[in-house]
């Protein structure tokens, strides 16, 4: 029997309508996240990682439109849900934490109150009980002196503290899926590790699936079971972390790995990836959006992208893989 995944994104395409034309931000993206599994979405900025998350959560900007695809979650398609039903799920069944925790919290509302708002909304606590439950959540994310901190405003707390508050808000209702969008960007290195450990630990305790969005392959390898590599709105490779590091098959993944400082790589051996992302407004986008930067370009690359399975849960979208 095959286990039902926590989230299965299939064939997801998203367009943004801007003044200078339609931007095809996501093009037939698909991946799955098993229950209790931690999956990293990796790619440079502009590759569509965050848009994927926003589309799944149903919080795309007004300019963004989902043009195809499904996001199966708990037996139903998130993309087909009404805004009303989706709002019921958000914060309860699927949650998200963002980068820049200090601006992601309401600046003029006490942090305890912000946690309580979510609890009350999703039936996690009654209004009178909510402050006490909020303090319990603060304890859970290991904020010292939680009774006093619950009364604080975000501007009175450090960035790391604010990110713990964000985690408390996201996990308050024990969601089945957490999307963490660059949760450690802008935090110092020691705080990064603490935050990542906290997310990992709280996730394991409740059997929660986690999608971890980052541009840092090293961080992804350290904390995630599997890695999904995105480039210019395509998923180019997905593999278990170890398999990807040992045997990256897509030229872009390989370059990305070589550009990641690791324990073994010396600074001199770090490479940069030539070129930039293609202009996604172009009408004549090549089938493989990496082809403009690729050293292994062949005539076959003009055909529609293949989806080759090259190993145990290891897929690559390339005609000429390594």
């Amino acid at each position: 029997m095959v286990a039902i995944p926590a989230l299965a994104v299939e064939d997801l395409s998203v367009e943004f309508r801007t003044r200078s034309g339609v931007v095809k931000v996501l093009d037939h993206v698909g991946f799955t996240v098993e229950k209790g599994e931690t999956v990293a979405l990796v790619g440079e900025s502009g590759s569509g990682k965050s848009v994927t998350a926003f589309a799944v959560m149903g919080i795309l900007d007004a300019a963004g439109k989902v043009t195809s695809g499904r996001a199966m979650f708990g037996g139903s398609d998130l993309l087909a849900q009404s805004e009303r039903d989706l709002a019921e799920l958000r914060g309860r069944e699927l949650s998200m934490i963002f980068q820049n925790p200090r601006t992601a919290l309401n600046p003029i509302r006490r942090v305890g109150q912000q946690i309580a708002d979510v609890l009350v909304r999703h039936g996690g606590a009654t209004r009178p009980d909510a402050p006490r439950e909020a303090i319990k959540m603060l304890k859970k994310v290991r904020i010292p002196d939680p009774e006093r901190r619950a009364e604080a405003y975000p501007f009175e707390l450090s960035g790391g503290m604010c990110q713990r508050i964000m985690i408390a808000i996201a996990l308050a209702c024990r969601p089945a899926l957490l999307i963490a969008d660059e949760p450690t960007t802008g935090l110092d290195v020691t705080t990064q590790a603490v935050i990542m450990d906290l997310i990992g630990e709280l996730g394991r305790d409740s059997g929660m699936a986690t999608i971890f969005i980052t541009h840092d392959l090293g961080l992804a390898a350290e904390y995630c079971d599997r890695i999904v590599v995105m480039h210019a709105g395509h998923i180019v490779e997905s593999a278990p972390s170890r398999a990807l590091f040992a045997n990256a098959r897509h030229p872009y993944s390989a370059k990305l790995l070589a550009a990641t400082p690791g324990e073994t790589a010396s600074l001199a051996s770090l490479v940069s990836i030539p070129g930039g992302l293609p202009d996604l407004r172009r009408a004549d986008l090549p089938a493989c959006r990496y082809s403009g930067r690729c050293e292994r370009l062949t005539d076959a690359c003009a055909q529609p992208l293949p989806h080759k399975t090259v190993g145990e849960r290891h897929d690559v979208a390339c005609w000429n893989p390594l």
Partner: protein
Amino acid sequence: MLKLLLSRLATAIPSIAGVIVVTFMLTRLLPGDPAAYFAGLAASPQAIAEVRTKLGLDKSLPEQFVGYIVDLAHGNLGNSLSTGQPVVAEIVNRLPASAELTLVALFLAVGIAIPLGVLAAVKQGTWIDHLCRIVTTAGVSLPVFFTGLLMAYVFYYLLQIAPAPTGRLDAFLSAPTDITGFYLIDSILTGNLETFRGALSQLALPAISMAIFSLAPLARMTRGSMLSVLNSDFVRTARASGLAPRTVVFTYAFRNAVLPVITTLGMVFSFLLGANVLVETVFAWPGIGLYAVNALLTSDYAPVQGFVLAMAVLYIALNLLIDLLYGLVDPRVRLDS
């Protein structure tokens, strides 16, 4: 909060000092003979000389300034030439009429502008957004005295649903017992519904004219600030947490968006206090604006000076109130001061 109050009071002191110096300068440092101004147009040379000695204008400027301050400290703004009454007493008597008109106009303006701005931002690009845009551009372009006249013509002369645009109360109705000086409140307190209705119908047109004029900056600021807050990170967090749309828009977005709107209130008060003069002239409203205009026309200078000073002090006090209101809503200001 007390600390905030004290620090804001401290910043008001230089403003008040500046206002006193300017009002002093307006009368003493100008070309022409201040004694002649204060004595009035038809005064004889002897009368002017008398006024000069009486006002101490024959003394040196610093002495005069000290004298002016001493007079102010005693609440003395001089006497009106035409009525012979002390200016302070007249201003105090007429203040409730102006305050009632201005406050009703303010409540109307805020009550229309803020919901309009919020709706325009939440439903961006719909008809209500376009309506908001028209109102904000047209509103500031309407000369308040002209809108007042136009409304008087339409609602009094043509439709005959508004009373004659003359004063606070129809001549057949008696003013309510003076408790607050606000006819609307006093008539309710004394249970005099007929007077209430009369006062309200007299108040409606001038208050609406003033409200139309002042709601534009409020609506514009509400829309703009609401739009930027709705695009902010923390509103995205609130939506991602599945909070009810009502909570997102009001508890999260609106409370933050209202902060720049509170700041705009300062400008709105400046508009309102100026418009007050014009509207009182159009509707023969017995407030301090009309008092000053009548004094201007008879070159009766003491009331004008008293009026300018009173309005400036009132405006500074209102700005102080705005700062405190801001502090109430925004903990960053409250706790940092």
